[in-house]
Structures are given as C-alpha cells and as structure tokens.
C-alpha cells in the first residue's frame, strides 16, 4: 500500500494517531493526550476531535472499540489505531525524519563553510 499519497498529515490528525498508538482511548483521553504530547500547542475542541475521528474511521485508519459503561450507564466508546493507521503514522514519521535529516545536513554544510 502506498501510504505517501495520504501525506502530509495535518497536525491534529498526526497527534490523534500518535495518541492512539500505545493503547485505545476514548474522546476525552485523546484530547488530554494530544494537549500533553504537543506541549499544549494543539488543543482540540470537541467538534474538531469528532470531525477528525469521523474521517479517520471512514478512512479505516482508526476503529471503534467498546470500553464498557461509564458512570451514567452509557456505553463508552474508545478508538484504536488500525494496521493501516499505524502504517500511515510510520510513513509520516519517516517523512518528517527525512525532512529533519535534510535540514541538519544543509545546516552542517553551512557551518563547515
């Protein structure tokens, strides 16, 4: 599968995928994790988060898992990364690493002159 055609990811999508990498999370946990991962730079509103989750679900990058009931007896839904989503995240990370490597190379060339 060619992941590159889906890149680059928006910052919000990148952080949502990254947040789901270690374990499934429900909506609020994703929000908190994204804020923490981004050093409070990316603060998702509920509307933005669920708009993004809808598109990620449709694209098959994440999937829903039931997480049992919350305190009010409502079914709690959590989201987890799929293999496709993980592949996309890896591809985006590799793309960014390559950008960093290119930048570092050029910077070091400049310093050597």
């Amino acid at each position, binding site marked *: 599968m060619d992941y590159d055609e889906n890149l680059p990811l928006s910052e919000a999508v990148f952080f949502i995928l990254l947040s789901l990498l270690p374990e499934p999370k*429900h*909506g*609020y946990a994703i*929000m908190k994790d994204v804020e923490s991962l981004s050093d409070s730079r990316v*603060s998702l*509103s*509920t*509307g*933005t*988060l*669920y*708009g993004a*989750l*809808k598109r990620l679900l449709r694209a098959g990058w994440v999937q829903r898992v039931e997480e049992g009931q*919350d305190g009010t007896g*409502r079914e*709690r*839904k959590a989201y987890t990364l799929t293999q496709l989503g993980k592949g996309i995240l890896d591809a985006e990370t590799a793309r960014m690493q390559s950008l960093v490597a290119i930048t570092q190379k050029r910077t070091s060339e400049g310093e050597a002159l």
Partner: protein
Amino acid sequence: MNQVLNRLSRFYSILTVLYPYGFRQEFGCEMQIVFLEKMVAQKEIGAWNLWRTFWKEIRGLPIAILTEYWLAFQDTFGRGIMFLITEDKSWRIEDRRDAIIACLPPAMVGFGIALGALVIWEPWQTIPHWRLMTGFVIMMLPGLVIGLGGLWALIKRVPPWGHIWIGAAGMGLVLFVKTIAEERADFGLPMISPVIDNVIAVMLLIGIAVLIGVSAWQGWRHAGMVSLGFASMAGMASFSMATAAPFNRYDLALIAAPVGLMMASLIYLYLRKGDGGRVVAILVFGTINAIVFFIVASIWDLPEGSPSPVIPFLIVLTGALLVGPIAGLVGRPVRKVIQGS
C-alpha cells in the same frame, strides 16, 4: 452536578443538534459526554479556565458544523444524479380513489370553460345579462371548488391527492388576482394601489415558493405533483384568453374539455405508474400546454413590431411544470442530510 456545568452541558447539547443528522446520530451523545468531562476538569482548575475553554469550544463549532454539512452534501450529491432520481422509485399513490381525486382539477376546469363557452357563445355585448352571468359562473365555479379543495388539503396536512389541488389552487389564485387587477386597470379603475399590488405579487410568489419548498422536501415526485397543479391551471388559462373580448373564440374554448381530460389522464399516469411514466407524463403535459398556447396565440392580432408574448408565456408554462421536480431533486437530499430521512 454544579448548576453552571449543568447549564453549559445543556447548551452544548442544543448546539450539537445543529450537526447533520448522520453525524449527530453517530457522535452526538459522545460529544456531549466528552464536553462535560472537559468542563468538569476545567472547573476544578478554576472559573477562568472553565469559561476560556467553553469559549474555545463554542468558537470552533460553527466552522466544524459547516464543514460537516459540506462533507455530508458532497457525500449525498456525490452519489450522482441517477441516485437522486431513482431513490424511492417504488413510490406511487396506492389508493385509486385518491389518484382519481387528484386528477380532477384540470378536468373540472376544462369542462367548466367548455360549458361556460357553450352558454355564452356570442360576444358578451350581444347576449342577455343572465346568459353572460350564467356562463361566467359555470366557468368560475371549478376554480372556486379547487380553491376550497386546496385550502382543505392544507388544513388536512396534504393528503395524497392534496399536492395537485394545492398547486392548482395556488396558480389559480395568482391568475385570478392578475385577471381582476388587469380588468379593472383596463377601465382606469386599478383594483389597488401599485404598492399594495406589488406586495400582493410578492406574497403570492413567496406562497408559491413555500409550496414548492415544502413539497421539494419530500422529493421530486411530490414536488412534481405541485408543478402539475400549477401547469394545469396555467395551461387552462390559455383557453380563458381565447374567450376574452375582442377574440370571443368560444369554439376554441370547447377544446378545453378534452384537453382537461387528457391532462387528468396524464396526472393519473404520473401518480400510478413508475418513474418512466412520470417523465412521459411531464413531457406530454408540457407539449400539450405548448400546443394549446400556440393555437390560442394564433388568434391574437398583434400590431406590427410589438413584442410577442408567446416566448415569455411558454417559459412560464414550462417553468411551472419543471420547477417542482428540479427543486425536489435538490430538496430531498438536503432533507436527508439535515433530518436523515
């Protein structure tokens, strides 16, 4: 729960109703839970954080909602025009009696015009007053019945036969007001001041737009029925023009009866057959209206160089026939996005 949090949560749940149907069904409840969790956490930090976060949530909502509508419309309309046309293709008026009632307006008007013409038959100045009035009443009576029927259909929240009657009554009202206004103006007695005249015209236009809009919400087949009601009355008005002085072509007005029956048959075809039958009914209906109008227009003796009203009137007739189905092709998907049904 704290009263402030309770109110904020309730306010947010009202706002989530603004999302497209599919989206709020899938995520609405979850969003409300997450919003509340977020607000509770922020309140523990302090009131300033609570209101700042609340503002950030609300500020982003219009764009988020509009984006979802845009995507939902893209999704629905992206399925293609054939999907929009063929959706609910099994629809038809099941009850034969309802279908027959729906067909009545053009037949009644056609027979009314033909019978009235038979009674009057000669130039109005040359016949006794009672004969003129009897003929006039016979011509106008079906219009009155259709007007009352249209009103009844509105009161009964549009039964299956109601769309055609409401459409016919709406167009009948427009033509009636226009005829009366012009008659009085011919005698230098304008019915009302030009300002009120314009207000009435705008109100009638708004009324027609609402009729089309509401029926378009149900789909092109329903809106098409309203259009058939419009077009049947607009087409029949051609015959009334032939009987007017100085033409006095009561012989032409006799054709109104068979034409009315043909229109009624086409409406029956539209209501009871499949989509192919509906398209044929609309096409034949339009052709009949055009032929009738050309016949009637042929007796007009317009001064050399004066602009012909044929093309504008044909545009009105065709527009009346097509406005419903076209509006319905747009209206039904819009309803699907907003209401999900």
